[in-house]
């Protein structure tokens, strides 16, 4: 266990000139990143005229800060600010967790096991599914349609037998990532109709389902690559000892992949936290999320930068907290190398 804590970094400190170069680079980029954020913070305390009449930079020095935007959003609107906030938190957390759970398993499966589904079976399944959906759209009872579909599938399957071309893991993985290729604007209306038929419009459930599916491919692909870097030997010896795949996955693989899990979780959290177009269409009154509130600040009189800035700050704070919390796990990548060494 002692080896775990051994640091694998360069034993010698950085030479002075290199340290200067590194710091210069780090500080420069930090400035590039922080200046726009500083501008958002300052703008949230400005009156419209401070924005309109050319730039002012320092509160109390070249302009008198005002809390009007904060007051408007937290006092005047209150529930119209807090409800979307609550929705955003719940939707993003639940959907990212689900995507991580499903996607991690799939990523691992696609790396370690071989799947060889037959092309004919896939096409048959697709055709049956389309038929079932079409039947349900024509208002055939759901259970009857699904039952009929299963029967049809099994019947034709028996007739066709088990032959023909198969597809491999890479094809499955590519199919998954290809689900992100169509821009949301192309699929938003069909998805709207789908959730309308399921009576899920304007619920958090609709957003959670959508975001989980949208983020799954990213989780699968990233986690597959993180798992790739984990040495096989541990798993193999555990398998020889008779551990089940679940046990190996849960007790050996996942702990080793913590940095990847943390990074991936943060990524998909951010994606669902910030998503706009689906949120716009799948919600109306109850389930609206914060990105809608931000976009809404550009109304008939031009963008209301002050309100927008406050909302951006409200939105970004929890994610920063999350990033700080998860950063420690990303840093634990140290453990991986040490355990294997």
């Amino acid at each position, binding site marked *: 266990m002692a080896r775990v804590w051994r640091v694998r970094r360069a034993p010698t400190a*950085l030479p002075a000139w290199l340290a200067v170069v590194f710091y210069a680079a780090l500080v420069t*980029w930090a400035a590039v990143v922080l200046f726009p954020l500083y501008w958002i913070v300052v703008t949230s305390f400005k009156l419209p005229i401070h924005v309109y009449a050319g730039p002012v930079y320092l509160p109390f020095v070249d302009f008198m800060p005002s809390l009007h935007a904060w007051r408007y959003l937290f006092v005047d609107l209150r529930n119209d600010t807090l409800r979307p906030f609550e929705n955003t938190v719940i939707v993003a957390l639940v959907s990212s967790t689900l995507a991580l759970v499903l996607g991690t398993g799939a990523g691992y499966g696609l790396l370690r096991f071989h799947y060889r589904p*037959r092309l004919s079976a*896939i096409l048959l399944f697709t055709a049956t599914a389309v038929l079932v959906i079409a039947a349900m759209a024509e208002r055939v009872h759901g259970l009857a349609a699904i039952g009929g579909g299963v029967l049809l599938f099994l019947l034709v399957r028996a007739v066709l037998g088990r032959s023909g071309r198969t597809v491999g893991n890479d094809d499955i993985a590519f199919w998954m990532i290809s689900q992100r290729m169509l821009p949301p604007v192309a699929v938003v209306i069909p998805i709207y109709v789908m959730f309308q038929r399921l009576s899920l419009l304007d619920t958090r459930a609709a957003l959670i389902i959508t975001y989980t599916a949208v983020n799954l491919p990213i989780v699968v692909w990233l986690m597959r690559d993180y798992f790739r*870097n984990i040495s096989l030997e541990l798993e193999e010896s555990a398998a020889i000892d008779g551990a089940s795949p679940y046990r190996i996955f849960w007790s050996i693989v996942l702990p080793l992949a913590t940095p990847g899990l943390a990074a991936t979780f943060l990524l998909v959290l951010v994606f669902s936290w910030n998503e706009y177009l689906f949120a716009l269409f799948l919600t109306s009154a109850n389930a609206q999320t914060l990105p809608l509130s931000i976009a809404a600040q550009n109304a008939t009189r031009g963008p209301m930068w002050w309100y927008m800035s406050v909302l951006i700050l409200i939105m970004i704070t929890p994610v920063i907290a999350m990033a700080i919390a998860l950063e420690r796990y990303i840093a634990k990548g140290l453990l991986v190398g040490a355990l294997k060494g």
Partner: protein
Amino acid sequence: MSKAVDRPGAEEIPSAPGARRIKTGAGWGAARLRAAADWPARQVTTSFVLPAVLLLFFLSIFPLLVSAYLSLTRFQFVPGGFALRWVGLANYGKLLVGIEQSHFLGVPKPPTVVGWLLFGLAASVLLLFAVRGITSASGRRGVVGRAAFAVVAGAGIWLAVRTLTPGGFPGTLLTTLIYVVVGITVQYWLGLWLAFLCAQEVAGRRFFRVVFLLPMMITPVGIAYTFRILMDLGKGPFAPVWRALGLAEVSWANYAWGARLVVMLGDIWQWTPFMFIVLLAALESLPAELIEAAMVDGASRWQLFWRISWPQLIPVTSTLILIRMIEAFKIIDLPNVLTNGGPGTATESLTLHAFMAWRTLDIGGSAAVAYMLLFVVTFAALSYVNLAHRRLAEAA
């Protein structure tokens, strides 16, 4: 009993030939299952992917088919509701040869000498590439793939050469490609450099790590508006600087390339953190032995990184580029908010093109643009996976 196994995406044949295609993939799973190729064990492996496959399948199949259908129709209101009139390929024809051609493909002009030279160079490389496909023993599929790639890539370069000539204007297709290529290149190297810096033993690196992640956490719409005020040369923070430089009469918003540059700046600011965080996590989870061994041999920090660490990052790099590529093709918020696609149509991306059509209820036209985008992305991603990704993934 056995029929239930044949669900798509779920079946598993333990002793499948060619099981060595993924190097690390031929792991203990196959070995174990060869020993006990019984049904429950197969269900266990199936259960890893099945939930994900089914969720994706059911959430994507219906929208995909419906939007494909919409792209072949025209949406119109009629008394009593709306009608979808079948128009065949008219929506696509409009983009490629019809009234939207100059918008989608651009305005071509005869290439200059430099243009001809560049095109000649690219064409000969592609030709060489296609010919090598015939001579090498990669099978019929490989030849067809190579030839198709060469033809499409050649057409793309021809389009670029003709529309980027003085007097020509690139359409939304080429503009999007420019965003993708420039954006990914800059973001990757910047992200890698930052990840490298943050993996060093420097004081305060935890601070830098969190700070560098920040841009990604802001909602894209918010970033777009932030850049709009930052880049405003009348009332943004850089206005006095701009005036002091004597440029008060000049604005990036009037120049096609100026506006594209500003859009790309925003994109780089926003997405470099994505590259950064994934590369950093990968860098942090690299095994230590190799590095230690190399350090014992007295390798420099620079050599350590390029010879030992970076090659191991290649699989992640490759995935990262693929994911970013797919996302980058969908760029919309920045051009939409910064310039609304202007001046003229200079900054308009394909997704914005589709979005603008969609907003005016031209649902068929919008779906056609989206499907053209899908073809381009699929082609790019397939070429990338076949030409680069598999090799890179196996190289590690």
